[in-house]
């Protein structure tokens, strides 16, 4: 295939376990859980009142002085993404306009961005006064909204909520002028964004790409949606830390949350020329579609298995050569079961040897950003040669033969598979490898 090799020279993450990838990694290994009662709004009447929320931050700490005015155009999805990108740029050693406004050395036109985003719901208290003045006798009146409500909505309202604004703000802050795409493919968006970012480098359209995704799902409208779809657990309100139980027999739904993850992808020669530390290599990726029941849950494993097998094939990795799998593991029982079956099929007799480490019990399910957090953790597992324990996994699903690590430990991690699927049926998989100078 392509002659250009793509390596990862830094990661960044904002997650319920902290504002940096280091905090996320420590939290994962120490068995901390980022899930708690919702703070963003009062969830008193919600069937699911818990979520994974990112700790408090001041966005001004992450936005260069010259761009601070634009911070008010950032919804929370954008803020989290800007924070993760800030870390991924600083840790890479690349000198962007944000790092040194006077002497940036980033090759702007040869740098791209490929970012996953969810459908962003507006902040209700922001628009509520304009809606409220449009009421006539206690009922919303469209004519009054047109005359009196609309003129009071903040003029740039729409720009705050367009999915591509995550990539655009990051691009402006760091002066990224090359190819730019925003993947909106449900819960596999981040896997796809990282694959496509790598492809931009492989085909020579960019030398460096910031790839990943961000989503802030702890918005009342989005939480209602997951409850209506019956994907959220309704039984975890009194014990949030034990609520999200991927692949566990007692699992009865997912816990949604927020986060952002960014990988700095780089052409190998470009990274070597500037003496960058290489954390891992991108080895392959694929996606497909699965049959679904009512477009919500997987009906069978066909689409996920196609993605996993093709990603492995592209990476030239045999299933038994895998050292770690970070699965989607949403804790939605029927989906977990199908994912477990797929991984068992693919692994064959290696099922008893390859550790499977689901992260959502600690991180919650950050929607389209979930894959970016998984991939950031995969890079750190390779760099640190360590894996953590499967959280809230006491008794695996009936018939599940996957090997779930029971405690954090040093482990030789050369090859990692991250996979996912989405409502709507899209599936995706990515394979990362430890970087070795000679490629086989």
């Amino acid at each position, binding site marked *: *295939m392509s002659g250009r090799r793509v390596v990862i020279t830094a990661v960044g993450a904002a997650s319920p376990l902290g504002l940096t990838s280091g905090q996320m990694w420590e939290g994962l290994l120490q068995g901390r859980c980022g899930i708690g009662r919702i703070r963003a709004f009062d969830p008193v009447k919600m069937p699911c009142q818990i979520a994974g929320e990112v700790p408090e931050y001041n966005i001004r700490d992450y936005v260069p002085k010259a761009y601070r005015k634009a911070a008010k155009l950032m919804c929370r999805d954008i803020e989290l993404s800007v924070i993760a990108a800030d870390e991924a740029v600083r840790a890479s050693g690349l000198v962007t306009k944000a790092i040194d406004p006077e002497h940036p050395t980033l090759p702007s036109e040869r740098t791209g961005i490929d970012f996953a985003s969810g459908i962003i719901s507006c902040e209700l208290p922001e628009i509520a006064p304009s809606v409220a003045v449009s009421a006539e006798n206690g009922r919303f009146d469209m004519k009054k909204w047109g005359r009196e409500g609309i003129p009071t909505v903040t003029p740039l309202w729409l720009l705050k909520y367009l999915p591509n604004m995550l990539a655009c*703000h990051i691009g402006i802050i760091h002066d990224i*002028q*090359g190819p*730019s795409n*925003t993947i909106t493919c449900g819960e596999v968006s981040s896997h796809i964004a990282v694959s496509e970012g790598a492809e931009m480098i492989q085909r020579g359209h960019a030398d460096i790409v910031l790839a990943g995704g961000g989503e802030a799902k702890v918005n009342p409208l989005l939480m*209602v949606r997951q409850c209506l779809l019956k994907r959220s657990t309704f039984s975890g309100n009194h014990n949030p830390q034990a609520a999200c139980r991927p692949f566990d027999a007692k699992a009865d739904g997912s816990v949604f949350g927020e986060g952002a993850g960014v990988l700095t992808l780089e052409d190998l020669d470009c990274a070597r020329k500037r003496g960058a530390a290489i954390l891992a290599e991108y080895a392959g990726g694929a996606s497909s579609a699965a049959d679904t029941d009512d477009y919500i849950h997987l009906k069978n494993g066909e689409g996920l298995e196609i993605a996993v097998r093709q990603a492995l094939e592209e990476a030239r990795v045999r299933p038994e050569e895998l050292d770690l799998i970070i699965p989607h593991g949403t804790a939605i029982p029927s989906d977990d079961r199908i994912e477990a079956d797929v991984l068992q099929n693919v692994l064959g007799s290696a099922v008893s040897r390859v550790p499977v480490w689901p992260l959502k019990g600690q991180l919650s399910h950050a929607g389209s950003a979930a894959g970016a957090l998984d991939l950031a953790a995969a890079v750190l597992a390779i760099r640190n040669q360590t894996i953590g324990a499967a959280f809230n996994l006491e008794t695996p699903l009936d018939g599940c033969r996957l090997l779930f690590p029971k405690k954090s430990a040093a482990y030789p991690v050369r090859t990692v598979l991250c996979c996912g699927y989405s409502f709507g049926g899209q599936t995706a998989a990515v394979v990362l490898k430890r970087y070795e100078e000679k490629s086989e």
Partner: protein
Amino acid sequence: MKERVVITGMGLVCPLGNDVASTWEGLMTGRNGMNYTTLFDASTYPTTFDAEVKNFDLNKVLKYPQRHQHCNRGSSFALGAAQEACRQAGIETETDSPADGIDRRRMGIYLGAGEGAMDSDAFFTAIVKAWNSQTQQMDWAVWTDTTFSMMSAEHELEQETNMPAAHLAVLTGARGIIRSCLTACAASTQAVGEAAMLIRQGKADIMIAGGAHSMIHPLGVMGFNRLTALSTRNDSPWTASRPFTASRDGFVLGEGGAIVILESLSSAQKRGAKILAEIIGFGSSSDAFRVTDMHEEARGAVQAMRSALQDAGIGIEDIDYISTHGTSTAENDSIETLAIKKVFGPRAYQIPCSSPKSQFGHLIGATGCAELITCVMAIQTQTLPPTMNLHDPDPTLDLDYVPNQPRKARVETVLKESFGFGGQNNVLVIRRYRS
């Protein structure tokens, strides 16, 4: 060995017509798709008109419409357009055992698709009930109860941006690479470009690519109105989209679905598919300037155009026609004209460039692929679609915009450009197919 990428099918649902032929006929006869808004009561909005898809009935297009019964307008337009495109390309749809000889694992989907309309009745009602104007606080208990009593799981699910691609996977059985992107008004141009790259890189044989979007709903129109992006020529919707004129005052919001079937040349030849045109170049860039404005010197637009030409391996002398983004906003039309002049130099004045948005409006996420289809038609018929309503040219905009009437011309190679909010620039170069 890079694969050549050709187009073997096209489908379109847009305000001018519900297929390619009627849309092209509309473009050639000066029709337009604008009128007063019927999808909701916009009578007191700053803009009271739009460009709506008319008389589109999915039940007449599909054999099994019940598989898509809850889908939103955007998804239904995607399905209609895909059905037409697949038929032309000889891809069987709505079957579990296709006999067309195409390996579904090598056939993928790439859409530039937008979100579905919000359940605005529930949205507005819940806020009115729960907002306390005295305390400026939301009563979340009231809000939650109202929302749960009014919203449905189906409608909520179908708002998600990946649902149009999900419906196309069910329609076509595609099991290859499935992706969906949303880079504002440049989304479907980007989807087609990225899909072409996947074929070129050998990752798929066939990609069903394009876009689908409808933002004609209370919050969508409000958002664009607040940005002052829409024309407010409420006394004359039919002449409101007037790109490159001195009197232009914004775009006309449209909606639609546009699909092209992209295929590796070897796959098309093996299947004996009719080749409509070849995609030879793709360029993508970002302004990295402001989320509110295009770069004053058209930096990003210029870079995307140059990248696309370079990717195609051709020079500025090879372009016969430019299909513009041409939105009819003050900013876009000026900066786009500047960009063309910067890239093409003195030759800019010799290249006709027009905007079909003057007739079908701005289809947002779907617009780029809809316009790409008009480029293929221009190659096939050797006729350029015009820029209508161009009676008072802006004196500072002096290119050949093909004013008011279609024109016979030699059309071998075409450049299609799309620009989106936030500084997203995507450009495709297509050419008449030559073996």
